[in-house]
């Protein structure tokens, strides 16, 4: 079996050494960190790796050891009551099932550090934060904080809508156990920082969501907790206020406040955090510098269950045994088994497995605008297929198909296949699209007689991905709009106007 020409090995670059792979679930020690590289295209930030000189000898403010939270899930609330009275089973089944939302989280944060926590939805970030904030008790592990922790969780939700901004500050302060006089001392500072104008003395139910955030952030930042937990809610305010918040956060950190920052906003993590933890499925899969954390987070989004694995060196020259090795690596890194994937088709030509590699040869679907993704698709015939075809479809966030093409449209003909035959098709897709998230689908089929543009889909897998296309803020955008169309320009010099007369 041969595979499609140059695409077989294509742009797979043996990027990082095997020593950088690390166990996906083991904690990275600083020594390992020092040897790993950040994504080359990313701008270096002020503090690249976590335990740097800056905070190295500051006292530890937050210490977590083996933190874990188990939720018990009951069929009905009464099952819980049964358990209080010692019953363990009903109809032979246990009354509850255990769900560990967070497990094995250990970290230390030193004074003045900013720890970022990133991870996809449902990865345990919020549960972890609630435990840090003291709003939830850990099931196992130890957690110590030296001083007061304040969190902006579900920011603004805790404001009493009937009270004015001013009254809310007093209310929140007393709720946190401060005397009312403490709040009154801070009110002027909060008022000037929040810049709410006359709204400061109006009931909060007249506020816009951005105003609520301003009030809540200003309030908590002015209370000067020892540890300040900020989550994504901060991205609600307008850009000017966000900048002001970021400046304030830096100022507070410089004055020795410790921050824990949770966000999907990778830019914020990169610019504010000194260290980051990547969470996935309730476990920390990486702990270290924000640069690497972000790139690992993006890679983990792209479907690997336990986070990114770096690609092993690509198979040597395309000899026939190597083809089989290629097929094996595709199966090993298969992405079509993802939970969200949708599958249908008649099955005569099956998509056995597929693998996606970024330009650095890693199992990642995070690329910069204009970079190439390599998509390897392993097909197997279950029937005699005279003219097999394979193709790819790309969808945007609104599920609109923005592009679809395949071997047929490319004029690339795959060899006829008999049952049991396998072939690897390697697509190289240049992501000339807007920075955003995309999903994609793979298809395998054959043409029908009579209609040149029709075909039978034997197998189709959709909702793969997501592909993250990004652009660094310092790069000139190569185009605007949904996607880049082939465009060229020439120019011809002309006489200045008026000369003809």
């Amino acid at each position: 079996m041969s595979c499609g020409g140059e695409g077989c090995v294509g742009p797979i670059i043996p990027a990082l050494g095997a020593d950088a792979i690390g166990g996906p679930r083991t904690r990275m020690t600083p020594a390992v960190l020092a040897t790993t590289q950040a994504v080359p295209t990313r701008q270096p930030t002020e503090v690249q790796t976590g335990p740097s000189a800056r905070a190295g000898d500051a006292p530890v403010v937050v210490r977590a050891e083996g933190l874990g939270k188990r939720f018990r899930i009951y069929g009905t609330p009464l099952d819980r009551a049964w358990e209080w009275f010692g019953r363990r089973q009903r109809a032979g089944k246990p009354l509850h099932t255990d769900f560990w939302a967070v497990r094995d989280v250990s970290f230390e944060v030193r004074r003045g550090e900013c720890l970022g926590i990133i991870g996809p939805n449902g990865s345990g970030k919020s549960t972890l934060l609630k435990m840090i904030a003291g709003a939830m008790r850990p099931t196992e592990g130890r957690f110590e904080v030296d001083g007061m922790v304040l969190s902006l969780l579900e920011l603004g939700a805790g404001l009493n809508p009937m009270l004015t901004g001013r009254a809310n500050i007093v209310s929140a302060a007393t709720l946190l156990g401060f005397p009312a006089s403490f709040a009154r001392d801070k009110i002027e500072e909060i008022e000037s920082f929040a810049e709410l104008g006359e709204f400061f003395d109006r009931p909060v139910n007249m506020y816009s969501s951005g105003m609520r955030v301003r009030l809540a952030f200003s309030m908590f930042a002015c209370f000067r907790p020892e540890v300040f937990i900020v989550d994504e809610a901060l991205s609600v305010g307008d850009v000017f206020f966000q900048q002001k918040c970021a400046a304030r956060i830096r100022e507070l950190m410089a004055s020795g406040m410790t921050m824990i920052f949770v966000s999907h906003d990778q830019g914020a993590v990169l610019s504010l955090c000194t260290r980051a933890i990547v969470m996935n499925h309730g476990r920390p899969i990486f702990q270290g510098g924000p640069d690497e954390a972000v790139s690992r987070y993006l890679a983990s989004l792209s479907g690997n269950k336990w986070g990114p694995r770096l690609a092993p060196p690509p198979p040597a020259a395309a000899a026939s045994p190597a083809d089989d090795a290629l097929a094996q690596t595709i199966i090993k890194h298969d992405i079509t088994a993802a939970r969200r994937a949708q599958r249908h088709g008649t099955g005569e030509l099956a998509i056995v497995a597929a693998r996606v590699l970024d330009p650095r040869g890693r199992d990642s679907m995070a690329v910069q605008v204009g970079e190439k993704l390599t998509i390897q698709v392993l097909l197997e015939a279950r029937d005699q297929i005279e003219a097999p075809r394979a193709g790819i479809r790309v969808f945007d966030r609104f599920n609109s198909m923005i592009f679809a093409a395949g071997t047929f449209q490319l004029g690339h003909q795959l060899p006829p296949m008999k049952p049991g035959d396998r072939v690897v098709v390697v697509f190289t897709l240049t992501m000339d699209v807007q920075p955003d998230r995309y999903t994609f689908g793979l298809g395998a089929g054959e043409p029908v007689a009579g209609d040149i543009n029709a075909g039978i889909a034997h197998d189709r897998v959709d909702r793969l991905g997501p592909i993250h296309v990004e652009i660094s803020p310092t790069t000139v955008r190569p185009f605007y709009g949904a996607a880049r169309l082939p465009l060229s320009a020439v120019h011809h010099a002309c006489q200045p106007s008026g000369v003809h007369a």
Partner: protein
Amino acid sequence: MLPSLVKHRSYIWRTAWAEVRDRYAGAGLGFVWNILQPLCLILIFTVVFTSILRHSAPEIKVHYTVYLCAAMLPWQAFADCISRGTGAFIQNAIYLRKLPIPEQVFVAQSALTSAIGLVISYVILVIVAVCLGHYPSWHWLLLPVPMALLIAMGFGIGLALGTLNAFIRDVGQLVPVLLQIGFWTYPIVYHRKHLPEPFDHLVQFNPLFPYLDGIRQLFIDRHVPDPWMWLAMFGWTGAAAIAGSFVLRRLRDELRDVI
């Protein structure tokens, strides 16, 4: 348990007062309803039981309104305290889910709200009683003690029921029914002598007895309750507080997970 209540006393006091103040916010008469509500209630019970039912009980030496309200108003505050306490954690879920506030603060706050309501309504009762010719006595100055102990017992019960209710919402549905039963098992509306043979003595073992009877002795009979009555009050209150904190302590770890 207590230190956290002391630490958050400012919040407890402010929100309890705000709740009383704003309960009728939006209504034209606003705060006045806090006075009108108990006043109307006193009026209705008086009319119903003295005119329509022609309630007669020679044992009751004072105006029936005074007899009824002396015990009914504390009972209402107690019932209010329990039903508020039962819903306290669910009502304040928004805070419990994100802030490290000790749980009992919210039950204490609802108990204090009920206590403020009791003070307001009892002041009205005092005015009504004086108008009806029932003159004040120094014994009335002792009234706050059994009242505070009664509300404290309500706090303990509310703590337990509030915790259970967070896990099993049926508790919240059950509590009003139990309170209705409680209202009629104690001689608030009727007189103790109206109870059939064994019950008129057994009623002394009703946890409400030392409080409500003590209040009536102070308010109506101008008599300081016997020491064993005081002992019973402290005993029941202590037992309720211990039971409440035991339940909360046992279930605290998961409480915030389920609300």
